[in-house]
């Protein structure tokens, strides 16, 4: 059984992450003022995904956990995306 190596994230790193997230929030609000029609959702989801990635990696510490955790997260998200796609195989082709 491997033991954990403690990784202490400095306060400043957390502060930078927070600033980045706030900036992305500002960005996602401002882009709605521009009319991108069909692309709006795509852009909004893209920014949200970047934010989620940052939260997962830094706040939720995935970067410093064993790779097993990352594999699991990717697996779960992949399965969920596939479920959506297969469901849409019904709704988009009715």
């Amino acid at each position, binding site marked *: 059984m491997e033991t954990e190596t403690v990784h202490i994230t400095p306060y400043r790193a957390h502060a930078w992450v927070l600033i980045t997230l706030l900036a992305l929030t500002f960005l996602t609000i401002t882009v709605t003022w521009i009319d991108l029609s069909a692309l709006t959702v795509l852009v*909004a989801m893209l920014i949200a995904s970047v934010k*989620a990635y940052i939260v997962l990696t830094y706040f939720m510490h995935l970067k410093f956990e064993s790779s097993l955790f990352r594999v699991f997260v990717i697996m779960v998200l992949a399965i969920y995306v596939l479920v959506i796609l297969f469901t849409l195989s019904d*709704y988009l082709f009715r």
Partner: protein
Amino acid sequence: MEHRDDIGAKLGMWVFIFTEILLFGGLFLVYAIMRSAYSTEFHQAAHHLNAFIGSINTVVLLLSSATVAMSITAVQKGNNKLAVILLFITLLCAAVFMVNKYFEWGHKIHIGLYPGSDLMLTLSHGQVMFFSLYFFMTGLHMFHLVVGGIILTIVMLKVQRGTINAGHYVLLENGGLYWHLVDLIWIFLFPLLYLIT
């Protein structure tokens, strides 16, 4: 006798987070289907939501997430006092979020806009779906926020008492993970509900 396994505890917490992600995942799936069926009505209905309050709540939640993450650093460095302050700020943020939500929901319920109301039945199908999803999703999210708040309160008291300390803080980490999950879900809820006008 009981052996301690911090990685195991964290693994358990992550697996629980996966179940939470899929719990909301079911709702996001409903959202995707309904949105593809009624995209224009969703746009119209979203105008009734207050994007300003939504934005404030986003900022508040992000801030609370950062303070939780910082509190772990504080405990690791042996500064329990600072950790308690940081956790207290988190709980304060949660309270602000709830107050905002109270006014947001309160206003809608006041004008008679809630699932099953008479006003709802006069709206178009797509708008009904939008508001039902709005109440169901934000309601479930709020429930998780309250649960997370309770967990963090317990954690905060333990930090204060010193049962969570630089040598043993997996409970704080797990409490934090749960809180970040609440934040994570809001990151997607916010643009999907408030920013599609």
